[in-house]
């Protein structure tokens, strides 16, 4: 055998040794993504594309984790949060999640945003027993399918956070049935599960008064104008408008309604109840006074609220470029802080040396009113049979014209089943 041959054998031997050493190493550690000093988690978010209005959510979550890390982390472990862009396109979410789980070996997926992206990946996450925590979408799938079989199998590893859309719809339905018994309701909605979920809830809340709905007009998530739908609703004689849309089309709906000289009593799905966007709608001509929506995060226009103050400090220190946004009342930031707080809470209750199993256990036995970033009085509760962490909402109403804000309407309400 020549020199070349011998050299190659030595190299091969070294490589083999290295590989088996890593394999052995790997075999000793516990769940992936967790070491003595850090916990690696990841999430997919629409940093680009149609839903990129929500990119402030992961920014706030990262800021909160940075704050926690500076204060000793969780049981001595720092949280390492990888934010991946999926452009709200499930075809991108799937490889992104696979990369996080198989390449980056994250301990858990946290905060993944979007219903379609969630539906595309929850089968994979559950098959690989990866906790898929606090999905940033209000679809009720994440609450119902922990033990029930959905799309072929139960999904115990997936859990949401915010009050689900049907609950919110029910709230508005009950309000209308009680306070506006002669309303003629027109609905403009995003033509997918998100939109239809809300309408189901609205109808449940209206109960016997379901017949008040005179028309519903759908649009696609990618549509840039909704003039046709608004015109149609006005033509059918509606005097109450229910907008189920994300910020882009919500603004379009509000402005178009005013533009065509229509002034219905308007209800807005709280996914678009974000002050900077409403201000922009007002600037473009929408008449906001009397607009009704709901909320579950701490009131950002109340400077005495503890969560608002803490949030301001955290954003100011760890995400200073978003301070201006925070001042304007971008509730996405408060949402992100609230979710991150809840994750840290769950992690703290998962034991000194968390495993995926103990995290799941903690996630399904949460009981706290201590999240400063949610509306005062809201409890985060889960159990073996209750997979909906937050089931309370406060209704609110806009006042103060083009520079105003949402003010609480009534008391905190339970939206549970």
């Amino acid at each position, binding site marked *: 055998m020549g020199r070349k041959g011998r050299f190659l054998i030595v190299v091969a031997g070294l490589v083999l040794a290295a590989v088996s050493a890593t394999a052995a190493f790997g075999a000793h550690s516990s769940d992936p993504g967790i070491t003595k000093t850090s916990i690696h988690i990841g999430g997919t978010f629409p*940093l*680009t*594309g149609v839903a990129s209005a929500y990119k402030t959510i992961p920014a706030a979550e990262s800021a909160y984790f940075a704050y926690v890390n500076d204060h000793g982390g969780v049981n001595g472990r720092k949280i390492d949060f990888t934010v991946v*862009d999926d*452009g*709200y*396109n*499930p*075809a991108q979410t*799937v*490889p992104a999640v*696979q*990369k996080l789980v*198989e*390449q980056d070996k994250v301990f858990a997926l946290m905060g993944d945003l979007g*219903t*379609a992206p969630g*539906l*595309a*990946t929850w*089968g*994979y996450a559950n*098959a690989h027993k990866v906790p898929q925590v606090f999905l940033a979408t209000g679809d009720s799938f994440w609450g119902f399918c922990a033990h029930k079989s959905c*799309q*072929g199998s139960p999904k115990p590893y997936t859990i949401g956070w915010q009050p689900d859309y049907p609950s919110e719809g029910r709230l508005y339905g009950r309000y209308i049935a009680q306070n506006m018994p002669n309303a003629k309701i027109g609905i403009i909605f*995003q*033509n*997918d*599960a998100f939109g239809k979920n809300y309408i189901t809830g609205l109808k449940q809340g209206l109960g016997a008064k379901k017949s008040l709905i005179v028309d519903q007009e759908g649009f*696609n*998530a*990618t549509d840039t104008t909704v003039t046709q739908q608004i015109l149609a609703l006005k033509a059918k004689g509606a005097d109450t408008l229910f907008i189920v849309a994300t910020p882009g089309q919500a603004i379009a709906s509000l402005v178009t309604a005013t533009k065509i000289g229509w002034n219905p009593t308007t209800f807005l799905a709280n996914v678009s109840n974000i002050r900077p966007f409403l201000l922009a709608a007002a600037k473009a001509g929408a008449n906001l006074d009397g607009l009704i929506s709901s909320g579950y995060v701490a009131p950002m226009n109340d400077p005495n609220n503890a969560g608002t103050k803490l949030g301001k400090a955290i954003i100011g220190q760890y995400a200073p470029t978003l301070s201006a946004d925070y001042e304007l009342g971008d509730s996405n930031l408060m949402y992100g802080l609230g979710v991150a707080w809840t994750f840290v809470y769950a992690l703290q209750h998962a034991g000194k040396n968390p495993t995926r199993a103990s995290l799941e256990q903690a996630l399904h036995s949460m009981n706290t009113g201590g999240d400063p970033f949610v509306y005062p009085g809201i409890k985060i509760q889960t159990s073996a049979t209750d997979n909906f962490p937050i089931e309370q909402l406060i209704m609110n109403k806009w006042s103060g014209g083009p520079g105003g804000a949402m003010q609480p309407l009534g008391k905190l309400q339970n939206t549970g089943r």
Partner: protein
Amino acid sequence: MRPRLAALGTTAAVALVLAVLPFGLSGYHQALAAQVATFFISILGLNILTGYTGQISIGHGAFMAIGGYTTAVLSRDHHTDLVVTMAAAFFLCFLCGLVVGLPALRLSGVYLALATFALAVSVPQIPLKFSNYLGGSGGVQSAKTVSHLWLYAVSWSAAAVMFAVAWLVLRGRTGRAFRAIRDSEVAATSSGVALPVYKTLAFGISAAFAGVAGSLFVIGTNGFAQPSEFGVLLSLQILIGAAVAGLGSLWGVIVGAAFVGLLPTISSDVPVIGSSHGQDVVFGVIVIAVMLVLPTGFAGLLHRLARSRARA
């Protein structure tokens, strides 16, 4: 005889590498390689249409959507075996290609490009309209999901089969007819080539390939088919892959497929520009550069190299 042997040798070498590769790759990388195979098949199909008969199509994403949804729906509703759904996608898209190819006979050049562009934009809207059967924007989830190794094996096997089919089709009478049509339709007709038959056939075959690619695409997306997976960009990516590969030759296709399939992952580390935008910028720059500097694509480069070696 020698160039033949060289070609055969290269193909055998590539096949061997592909057969052995997955055992050295992690699951995630296997999935990535499978994605390259998916693009390989669709670019092959587009090459047959645009490179060999000169009909421009910027709408092959639409056929991928049809193929992908066929797989998802058959699997969800009838629990059909996934490979069987791929065959179903092949035949269904072949028919769809014929249906599109017939009116396309009356269009040429830019007009055909426009019409196929409109097809690419419109077809993904159909599942949104018929959401009861086609899932709307909640998508359609297949009944079975597969392991990375399965995906790799089936994708590359399908790619090999499709390559063989393409090679057989293109070397025979059909291939000569296609090339005649591309070079001059008038001359081809005068020589007795029945234009309508061959042009429509090319559309059908090309669409069938895209359909199989669409099947694999959906299987690779965890079996989940949803309209936003089949946006206009997909059709553009296939066209770009074909351009980089070199229209009118089969040999560059793997380079085009690797370029389109792997660029998104590589470009997420692009320093200044960063992930998704980096991908778009790099795509755009490279395709424009290729068209300006190397219009015959990678295949043309190979050809030039072979010629210069022959001369030396």
